[in-house]
């Protein structure tokens, strides 16, 4: 009788069971490798393409800083960044990494491509040519362009002809939106189109 009670207690009052009951803890939770954290620098050279800032959906989350030694470097602002990873995908040079985004992009053969569409509201445009003069792409093509935005060459991104602004080569646009800022009538609008492209090599 007593022996059975003792064996019963010994069966259920095991030391490791009592220890587990009072000091139970789940295993320390570690961040898994596939978790998209805040983007970090890979150490590759940033070429100031600014695609990260264009793709970013959160206001004030990423800035490209001009360093003192002349280089550029993206800065992520925690508290603004929503960890979507679009800047990592958009960067043409692979400056940032976050989780497994770069690896999965490599295996799936995907990339983000930017294109820009320029819309001119002809009812509002008064042909002042501020946009054509301010455009930094125009400056590299024809540095001699005078005020009024009239020019003889047709290689320009946009110019004024017959009193209205005309977009000639929208594929040359870099999406800087300088023309938008210099338009007095809000007649010109630049739309940034972000496309996810699969297998870009096979299409070419």
């Amino acid at each position, binding site marked *: 009788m007593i022996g059975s009670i003792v064996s019963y207690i010994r069966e259920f009052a095991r030391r490791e069971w009592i220890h587990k009951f009072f000091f*139970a*803890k789940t295993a320390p*939770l570690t961040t898994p490798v596939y978790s998209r954290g805040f983007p970090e620098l890979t150490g590759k050279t940033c070429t100031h393409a600014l695609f990260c800032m264009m793709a970013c959906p*959160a206001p*004030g989350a990423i800035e490209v800083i001009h360093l003192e030694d002349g280089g550029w470097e993206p800065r992520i602002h925690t508290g603004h960044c*929503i960890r979507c990873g679009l800047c990592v995908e958009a960067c043409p040079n692979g400056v940032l990494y976050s989780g497994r985004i770069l690896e999965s992009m490599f295996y799936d053969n995907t990339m983000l491509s930017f294109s820009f569409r320029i819309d001119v509201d002809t009812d509002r445009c008064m042909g002042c040519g501020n946009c054509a003069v301010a455009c930094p792409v125009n400056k590299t093509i024809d540095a001699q362009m005078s005020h009024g935005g009239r020019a003889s060459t047709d290689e320009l991104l946009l110019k004024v002809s017959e009193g209205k602004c005309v977009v000639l080569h929208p594929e040359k646009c870099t999406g800087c939106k300088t023309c938008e800022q210099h338009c007095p009538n809000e007649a010109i609008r630049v739309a940034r189109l972000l496309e996810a492209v699969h297998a870009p090599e096979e299409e070419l």
Partner: protein
Amino acid sequence: MSILQSFKNLVRSRSIHVAYVDVGSCNGCDIEVLACLAPRYDIEQYGIYVHNNPREADILLVIGAYTPGWEDKLQGLWEKIPDPKVAIAIGNCPISGCVFNRPHSYVNPPVSKHIPIAAQVPGCPPRPTEILQAVLSLAPEVFKDYERRKR
């Protein structure tokens, strides 16, 4: 250090009562706070209890971008919490307004303009482990030797 004080420290380290208040978020961070209660993260094994009652809370988790409806309410809610107390901003919204902080929107971030915020957990939403780590690392700083420091 008196025996009473060390006893209080011991008890307080395993009894942290948390209230959370959503001042206008998208509910993403609310879900992450609730995920802390679930067995995978299990916030209660560390002695943290979510009661959602400011009268018995030590830590207030503030979630959201501070919509106008909270202008006369959050301050009163903060004053109802007995000392010692801290507020932690959970997610991007109370820090910066995140994606809601656009021109012509009515939100009024950061929340630290309205009540004192002791810690911030950035992320949209933050992981439950990050919330848990913030509560656990802040609690001893605030509650340890509270009566001795107050004198």
